[in-house]
């Protein structure tokens, strides 16, 4: 058994380096296919980070009337706190709101002097709501849509943000759909490319396989070196692809860091976090595809 294993590995290695031209061409095609997959993965990652960055900047403010009783506001706060769709709540009392207003308009002397002429604070308290998902804002606001609460609410800024939020939802949905379709198309194209490259490589070995059979080699003795060789090819292609990918990320990350300022998103971090899923998946998929293509392509030559 060990003699067989050692022998087929040695034959696979000989096949690989004595047909180095063919091996390198096969690796080139496999690497190109893997790079296309990487591009899809990166685009999806960047898009979803960009969307979540925008989503994180969206919130809805509930502005209360100046005479709204504190306990009613607390009731609304508690209702929202118990809503699982709410990510965070921030309450700003009337004084805080006034201070912020003054700060924002500090250079507008007209507004500042008008405020100082008023005897009382004209601004009501504000409850800033942030949802876990932009789709949930409508639902969250509906949960406090009762006459008792409506009586103390001056305004909800959702009416201003609504179209933006809907647009973001639409973009997210479309991006995911396009990503999925592209991934599917690419998977099919990759399968066809890899299958045909491996098939061509086996066809070029066709005569050799027939000779091996004539000399008395069993099907497994003929098949195993080729199967091991395509595993070599898959692993080498994967390593080359990894080098190219991380090289490209090294160059691209400084620009992306600027774009995603404050979010902490980097491509390297994104890939490292998903390494097992993305890169492990690519390696496993490539090995399985190579083995399958080789077995199918060899069937013709292995019929006694």
């Amino acid at each position, binding site marked *: 058994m060990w*003699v*067989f294993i050692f*022998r087929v590995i040695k034959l696979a290695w*000989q*096949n690989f380096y*004595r*047909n180095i031209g063919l091996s390198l061409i096969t690796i080139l095609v496999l690497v190109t296919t893997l790079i296309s997959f990487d591009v899809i993965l990166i685009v999806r990652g960047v898009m979803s980070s960009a969307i979540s960055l925008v989503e994180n900047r969206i919130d809805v403010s509930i502005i209360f009337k100046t005479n709204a009783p504190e306990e009613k506001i607390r009731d609304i706060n508690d209702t929202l706190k118990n809503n699982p769709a709410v990510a965070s709540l921030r309450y700003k009392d009337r004084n805080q709101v006034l201070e912020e207003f003054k700060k924002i308009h500090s250079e507008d002397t007209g507004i500042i002097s008008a405020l100082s002429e008023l005897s009382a604070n004209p601004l009501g308290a504000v409850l800033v709501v942030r949802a876990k998902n932009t789709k949930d804002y409508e639902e969250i606001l509906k949960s406090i849509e009762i006459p008792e609460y409506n009586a103390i609410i001056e305004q909800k800024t959702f009416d201003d943000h609504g179209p933006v939020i809907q647009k973001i939802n639409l973009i997210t949905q479309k991006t995911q759909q396009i990503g999925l379709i592209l991934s599917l198309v690419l998977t099919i194209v990759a399968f066809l490319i890899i299958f045909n490259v491996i098939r061509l490589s086996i066809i070029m070995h066709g005569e*050799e396989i*027939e*000779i*091996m*059979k*004539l*000399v*008395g*080699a*069993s*099907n497994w*003795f003929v098949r195993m070196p080729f199967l091991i060789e395509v595993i070599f090819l898959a692993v080498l292609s994967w390593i080359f692809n990894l080098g190219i990918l991380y090289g490209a990320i090294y160059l691209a990350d400084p620009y992306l860091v600027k774009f995603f300022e404050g979010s902490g998103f980097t491509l390297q971090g994104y890939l490292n976090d998903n390494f097992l899923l993305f890169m492990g998946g690519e390696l496993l998929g490539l090995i399985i595809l190579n083995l399958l293509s080789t077995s199918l392509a060899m069937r013709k030559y292995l*019929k*006694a």
Partner: protein
Amino acid sequence: MIYFKNVSKIYPPDIVAVKDVHLQIEPGEFVSIVGQSGTGKTTLIKMMIAEERPTNGEIQINGLDVAGMHPKNVPILRRQLGVIFQDFKLLEKKTVFENVAFALQVCGVSSGQINKIVPQVLEIVGLDKKRNRYPDQLSGGEQQRVVIARSLVHAPKIIVADEPTGNLDTLNTNEVIEILKRINDLGVTVVLVTHNREIVNMLRRRVITIDSGMIVNDQAKGKYIL
């Protein structure tokens, strides 16, 4: 022993390559199968090594039922034979040593044994100094000697040679025939397919003549009569 009983081979739709052949070759014989091109000689050899299956009839080689053999048992049959082809059929990406060693590797012989046996066989065919060369670095005669070494190395009881001198000049032809005679002297059955009149007449061994797929003559010490 090689035994053919009423063997026919018909290729679709109705091309008769071999017709009702009855043949028995005893261990240690040197038999030449002669006939013009396209008379069914190669089909006969292909059926011996189970590369083709007969349409009708029975074939037995060393007690193995070749006609009804399961495909997975074909390698077992081929490991008992040594086959020499006109077009050499060498593995181009393997050295002389590796080509010869391959026939032992498929039989599961250990590397130690291979390293001992292969140089001895290469010495017999006079290629021990060219063991690391690739087939395309050898002359036609040398390539055919590698094929002979490969067919001999696993000590088969039968050697089947299909036009082994077809691509060789007179000098190399004589060398190859001399080697086959020496192998036969060691008790190995040799089946030689040829249409080379001089070789057959020089050998003065059993000659089976085939015409239109049928055996038309079988002489113990025959001559090329077509």
